[in-house]
């Protein structure tokens, strides 16, 4: 194949926006969870479990993890796009990254709802 430079994928804005939104979600959650833990001061495993048994905390924690993984997806993909030039290798790394992150999301859900 002739080595021509192809650009013009017409995406990027949504990812850029999502990266900012997820950053805000993570920042708000971090402040919130520290405040909750300071207020409750869980001293035992059961008390700690009790904090995360709360439906709202559970939802917010899951939201935090989804935000984290989406944020990480865009960030890690950017690293591959910056430094990995061979297209086949880059695509493989994209797929591996996405797979791992989807796995993490399922894992986070399993941990939270098993409580």
């Amino acid at each position, binding site marked *: 194949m002739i080595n021509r*430079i192809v*650009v*013009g*994928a*017409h*995406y*990027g*804005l*949504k*990812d*850029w*926006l999502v990266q900012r939104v997820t950053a805000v979600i993570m920042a708000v959650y971090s402040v919130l969870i520290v405040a909750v833990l300071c207020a409750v001061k869980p001293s035992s495993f059961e008390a700690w479990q009790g904090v995360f048994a709360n439906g709202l905390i559970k939802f917010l924690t899951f939201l935090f993890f989804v935000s984290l993984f989406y944020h990480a997806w865009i960030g890690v993909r*950017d690293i591959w*796009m*910056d*430094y990995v030039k061979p297209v086949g290798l880059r695509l493989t790394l994209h797929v591996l990254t996405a797979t791992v992150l989807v796995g993490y999301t399922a894992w986070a859900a399993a941990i939270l709802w098993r409580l």
Partner: protein
Amino acid sequence: MSKRTVQFSIYRYDPDKDDAPYMQDMSVELEPTDIKLLDALTKLKVKDDSLAYRRSCREGVCGSDAMNINGRNGLACLQNIDELKQPIKLRPLPGLPVIRDLIVDMTQFFKQYHSIKPYLINNDPPPERERLQSPEDREELNGLYECILCACCSTSCPTFWWNPDKFVGPAGLLAAYRFIADTRDQATNERLDNLEDPYRLFRCHTIMNCVDVCPKGLNPTQAIGKIKDMMVRRFV
């Protein structure tokens, strides 16, 4: 200022003669009237006429004598020589192919610049006099039109080093916003479409080296931010 001798360490490479580039120590005696780095380079060129660099206007308007001065991109004609630590290390702009000594091949840089269509697109019949703008609309072009395309910013940008063929670069994006912001231009949508790409625009990771080195004091990062703002406004 008095007479003084200034020490240099200059990147030399002549592809016809040298196998590899090397740094050459040089020194030159300066007169009290020699103030800028370009004055010293002129004297060096008299001493050794094989030294190659670009220059033209010698007053920061043409952008020809951009080079890497003590590790930082800048214009030789605007750089006060006595502010520099010696030996003054001169290298060609990073990230572009070297033609000889301090002269780089700017083809890639200008290719990116041309890719954003750096001219006014307006299909209305030209009015009898000029196309008018309100003073407020004109205000937005300040800090954009002054770019002299010296390439100091793009060649200090790590993202441009990694993807010079795909990332438009700070200079190109500043110029792109100059036309997006222009109320007389009718191709705003096409211009935004042209930039909505993970490489062309969104490779910018706001490292801000461009702002740091711009010899004209311009802010490409802010212009890139404004392009993103406009895309968001169009999107939501």
